[in-house]
C-alpha cells in the first residue's frame, strides 16, 4: 500500500525518499523544512531545493521515556528511539534515527530512509523521514 507522508511539505518524493528544503536566492542559506524567509540575511526570495540523502551524524541521543502529547504513541506501544542531527553538507537536519544506538557515533555516515508512524484514516501507513547508519560509497 502506498505510504502517506506525515506532512507532505517535508518531501519532494516519498519513493525514493527525498527531503524538501529551500535555498535563499540572495545568500545561499539552505533551510529545512521549506520556509518563506531567510534566517541569515532576512531575504524573502526562497527557492525550493531537494536535500542530500546522505550525510554524517553531528550529534545524537535516545528518547528513553515516553513523551507527552502531542507526541503520538505508535499503535504497538512506546519503545525508546534515536534522535539526532545529520550533516548533509548545506544544512544540518534534525531527525529520528533508526538502528541500534550502540552504532551511533558523531561523524558516522548516515542515509535517509522512511519510518512508519501509524495507520492513516484510509488504512495506509503514515511515514516520516529518518536516518540510519550506512551509505558509505
Amino acid at each position, binding site marked *: 500500500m502506498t505510504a502517506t507522508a506525515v506532512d507532505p511539505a517535508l518531501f519532494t518524493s516519498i519513493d525514493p525518499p527525498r527531503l524538501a528544503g529551500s535555498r535563499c536566492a540572495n545568500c545561499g542559506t539552505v533551510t529545512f523544512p521549506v520556509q518563506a524567509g531567510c534566517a541569515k540575511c532576512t531575504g524573502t526570495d526562497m527557492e525550493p531545493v531537494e536535500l542530500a540523502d546522505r550525510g554524517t551524524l553531528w550529534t*545524537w*541521543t535516545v528518547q528513553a521515556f515516553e513523551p*507527552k502529547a*502531542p*507526541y503520538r504513541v505508535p499503535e504497538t506501544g512506546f519503545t525508546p528511539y534515536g534522535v539526532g542531527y545529520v550533516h548533509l553538507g548545506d544544512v544540518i537536519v534534525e531527525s529520528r534515527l533508526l538502528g541500534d544506538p550502540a552504532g551511533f557515533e558523531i561523524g558516522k555516515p548516515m542515509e535517509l530512509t522512511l519510518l512508519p508512524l501509524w495507520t492513516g484514516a484510509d488504512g495506509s501507513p503514515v511515514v*516520516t523521514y529518518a536516518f540510519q547508519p550506512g551509505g558509505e560509497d
Partner: protein
Amino acid sequence: MSSARTEVSIVGVGLHPFGRHDPALTGMAMGARASRLALADAGVNWADIGYAVGGSNVSGKPDTLVSVLGLTGVPFVNVRNGCATGGVALATAANAIRAGETDLALVVGFDKHARGAFAASPADYGHANWYAETGLMITTQFFAMKDRRYLHTHGLKDELLAQVAAKAFRCGELNPDAWRRTALSEDEIMRSRVINPPLTQYMICSPSEGGAAVVLARGDRAADLCERPVGLAAVAKRTRRFGSFEVFAPWLPPETGQSPSVDAARAVFTAAGISPAEVQVAQLQDTDAGAEIYHMAETGLCEDGAQQQLLDLNETAPAGRLPINTDGGCLANGEPVGASGLRQVIDIVLQLQGRAGARQVPRQPHIGFTHVYGAPGISACTVLTA
C-alpha cells in the same frame, strides 16, 4: 558608574521555596507569598510600589496578583519569556526606574508545573504538528544533544556531567530552601535512570513549583531602605542569532554561530565595566548539568574545555575560586519557569549581603553575576555589586 545613568538597587528579596507543594496551593498564591516576603524584607508596603513586573509560564496572568496584594492602580507588566522570564522581568522593571516612571518597583515570578517533562505546543514555536507528533519536540533531547556535541568538540568526558550534578546536590544540602537536600555521589548519578543519554535522571532539573520576588529602588533611595543594598550594575537580554544551536530547531546551518548567552553576557559585562574574571559568585542556567558546563564558557567565566580542571579542583563549590549556583541551582531546586531567574538573583543578593547561611561564600564577595537561558534561544544576564 556614570552619573548620566540612574542607578538601580535591590533592596528586598522574598522566596517561596521551590519544590512540590500542596495541590491546592496555586502558583499565584506562591507569587503573592514571595511578594509579601520581599516587601517585608525591604520594609515597604505594596502601596509604595510604583511599578510591577510579573512572570509566569503556566500559572495565570501575573497582573491578577493585584486582586490579592491590593488594588492600588499600579502599572503591572506581564512577561512570558520561557526560562529567561525572571531576567527579562528584572530588566523591564529596572528600565522603568531608569526612565523615571517610579523609584520603587516589584518584580515577581511564579509557576506550578505538572510533573514530568514539559509538553510543548508546536504552534507556539512556529512549527507544524509533525514536529511534535513524530517525537522531535522534547526539550531534554536538545539538552542531551547540545551536551554531547559540546563534550565531543572540547574533549570532555560524560563523567563531568555527574561532577556538576553532585556539586549541585552538595549545595542543596546546605540550603534550607532547596527541594533536593540529599547529596548524591557521582557514581549514583551516573548509574541513575537514563533519560536522554548522556543525561541521567539526576543530571536534568525537574519542572517544580515556587515563587520569587525582589524589590528594586532607585539608587538614591536604596540606602534608606536597606542596610546593604545590592546594586544592579547592569542587565542585558538578547535573542539568538544565526547559527546558534537552539532548542526546537528542525535544522541548523553548517556554520557555527554564538549563542544568545554569549551576546547577553558580553553586553552586561561591557555595560557594568566589569570583566568576567572579576566575578566572585555566579548563577548560571543549569537546566541540565551540561548547560552549566557550556554556560561557564559562553558567559566568559572560563575557556572552553577548562571546566574539567575547575570541577576537579572543586573551584565551583561555595568555597572555591569561582562559586557557581551556591543554592543548588535548577538541579537541586527544580524549575518553576517564571520564578527561576529571580531565585538566581536572590541567591546572589544573599551572598553579596553575607546572608547566605551555611552556603555562604567564605571570602565575602562583592561582585556577582546571573545568567538565564530559555527556549527558543533567549538569554538575560545581570551583574550585581555590593
